[in-house]
């Protein structure tokens, strides 16, 4: 027994040590990584390239009554034109205000004590001004809609009879298109909004209110759902702690329903953005919708390309807004299963 052990030990001492090589990435691991990168980035890039190719083929080969459909390069060119036009207009505006400042100084020097009226530059809004106007309008409408939808949704979720009373109206008004609301809203705003010093343009208000009316439904329904499906245990906690109803809503019900509310808000913003473009076309709010309609009325050979630039802009902005809301939604979510 002991001899064998000694032999083995001798052999072990003589055996050369195998040098340790550093760990090598196997072929399979590299393949795996490449596949993941391809799937995440490569696939969309390729599909985008295919889309551009098909588009340019269709554009050059399909002839329409009104000339040809603009291809990707024509649209890109128009985007450049709009960009330059924006900066040219800004230049004019700066010059105008410089002149105006001189006038003002002159006038006040000659007529001390009198007031120089508040003059604004009267050039047409540029494409980027219009984008800003659209964004302002959609956020205003979204805010108005949410300020109505969230409280009403909470009450709907808490009280079954209230929900039953309100539900028929929700179901009837939810499917109404913005183009149907708009004339009514415009007439009402025209008749009722006549303050001596208006803060808002009537067209702006009409568009914002129409956006609110169409976009408040997802938030309302989701809020009601979120409040109604609150875990009974949380309400029991509230009862044991004898929380007043305001504290209950603020500390227990709202935080619990917040993920649902944010889902609703996200849907609402998406709907609102779509509705806005249609509303602006008719209400004449100087935003992207009006831009499209004006370009259409021009009927020039650049019209289709300009409208396509607007289409892509609308799409990208809608996408960005959605991502923003998703981010906010993630921030307020909690893992509901981990009570």
């Amino acid at each position, binding site marked *: 027994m002991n001899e064998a052990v000694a032999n083995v030990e001798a052999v072990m001492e003589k055996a050369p040590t195998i040098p340790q090589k550093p760990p090598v990435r196997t072929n399979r691991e590299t393949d795996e990584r490449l596949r993941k990168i391809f799937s995440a980035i490569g696939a969309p890039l390729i599909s985008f390239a295919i889309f551009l190719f098909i588009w340019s083929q269709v554009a050059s080969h399909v002839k329409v009554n009104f000339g040809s459909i603009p291809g990707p390069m024509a649209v890109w060119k128009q985007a450049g034109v709009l960009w330059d036009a924006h900066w040219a207009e800004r230049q004019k505006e700066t*010059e105008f205000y410089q*002149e105006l400042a001189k006038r003002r100084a*002159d006038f006040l020097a000659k007529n001390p004590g009198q007031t*120089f009226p508040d003059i604004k530059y*009267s050039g*047409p809004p540029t494409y980027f001004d219009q984008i800003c106007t659209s964004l302002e309008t959609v956020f205003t409408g979204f805010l108005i809609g949410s300020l109505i939808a969230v409280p009403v949704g909470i009450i709907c979720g808490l009280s079954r009879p209230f929900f039953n009373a309100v539900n028929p109206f929700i179901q009837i008004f939810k499917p109404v298109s913005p183009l149907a609301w708009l004339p009514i809203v415009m007439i009402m705003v025209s008749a009722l909004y006549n303050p001596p010093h208006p803060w808002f343009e009537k067209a702006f208000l009409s568009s914002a209110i129409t956006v609110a009316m169409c976009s408040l439904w997802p938030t309302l329904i989701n809020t009601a759902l979120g409040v109604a499906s609150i875990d009974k245990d949380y309400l029991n906690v509230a009862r044991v702690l004898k929380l007043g109803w305001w504290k209950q809503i603020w500390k227990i019900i709202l935080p619990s329903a917040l993920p649902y509310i944010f889902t609703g808000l996200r849907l609402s913003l998406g709907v609102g953005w779509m509705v806005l473009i249609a509303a602006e076309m008719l209400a004449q709010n100087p935003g992207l919708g009006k831009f499209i309609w004006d370009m259409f009325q021009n009927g020039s050979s650049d019209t289709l390309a300009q409208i396509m630039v607007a289409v892509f802009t609308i799409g990208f902005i809608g996408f960005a807004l959605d991502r923003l809301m998703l981010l906010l939604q993630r921030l307020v979510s909690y893992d509901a299963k981990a009570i």
Partner: protein
Amino acid sequence: MNSKLSSNFRETTRRQFLKTTAKGVLAGAALGALHPLALRAAGVTVEKPVLKFGFIKLTDCAPLVIAKENGYFDDEGLYVSLEAQANWKILLDRVISGELDGAHMLAGQPIAATIGIGTKANVITPFSMDLNGNGITVSNDLWKQMQEADPKLNVPQPPHPISASALAPIVKRNKDAGTPLKFGMVFPVSTHNYYLRYWLAAAGISPGYYINGDTTGTTNADVLLSVTPPPQMPATLAQGTICGYCVGEPWNEQAVFKGIGVPVITDYEIWKNNPEKVFGVTEEWAGKNPQTLIAVVKALIRAGQWLDASHDNRVKACRILSQPQYVGADEKVIANSMTGTFEYQKGDKRSLPDFNVFFRYDATYPFYSDCIWFLTQMRRWGQIAEAKPDEWYAATAKKIYRPEIYLQAAKALIAEGKIKSTDVPETDGFKAPDSNFIDGITFDGRKPNDYLNQFKVGLKD
């Protein structure tokens, strides 16, 4: 900002950039010309210097655009922004609601609003923007049928004016088959509606009546007329939804340019030097801002004068109007009608220097008789439901058309030496009896009911 993109891309943009910078310099110079609130000759200041006017994208909004671009508004101490509107109804509504201070309007709009057709509000006009400027275009298919019906038309340069009698047999054929021809016009009280009806009625075709509560105006019609917004007219014509339309420019020339239709007649040939667009404001606004209104009219008169001053000016105007914030159509399409020519069939381009008249022939004076003509047409087709005595016509015209404001503006301009005293007509507001109509009937503004009785087609008094 100078990128490495190919010069091709940048060419248009560079031109635009230079254009707009040049304009910036011009605007600056205009500002420098006269101190906006300096005491002017009469020692008056405007009540409301910052104004917003609306317009529709048609070439006869030119006086407004030129008044702004050439600095005439600046000279009067006005800071005007011009905003294109979606359609005539919205434009009128926004003027009435106060969102727009004033607008480029169809001559029929102040009239209809004041007497209560479509809406009720007191709208007045102190300035007529232009004469003529419309055309009637038919589809290629209809033109071929017309040429078959009347071989005289089947030549490269058919004799003008083309009356609707070539259309009459086609109209009858279609009506009997149960598919009456459809025509488009821009608004129930638009000049286009009335000129189209006049043209059709002159050949004995009934364009329909607005009687017995029919607001579409298709009662007893041989052809059906409907409202279509101007930008959609070429498209609907190409689709075959309508087979012809009456509209202002650039939509007739667009049809020729794109090969989808043939303009057959201009309203110049229906009624030589007919009133077309006006500048309208609400009576309330005019009451609150009298000096501002006079200043606006002054600027507009100067713009009209500039437009008719030379061929060169017209070319410059085409370039300005082709900018996307104004009419936006391609420059050469606008030039086709604004620089003294008009293209009918493709290749049939004729000299028509009076297609648009902005100043000559007292184009800018708001004559009562012009207003009365529109009132007679409204009565002829039933938009005015009952017969009215001659005095009513005159009294209504005096409510709506305001030559007194025009004259105050004109006098100020004469004093400043901007226009000649011979440019302003000496008149009591009624033009002399006029028989330059396609059917030869004489129109005397003082006797509207007699005029109505002369028509074969149409409601009598």
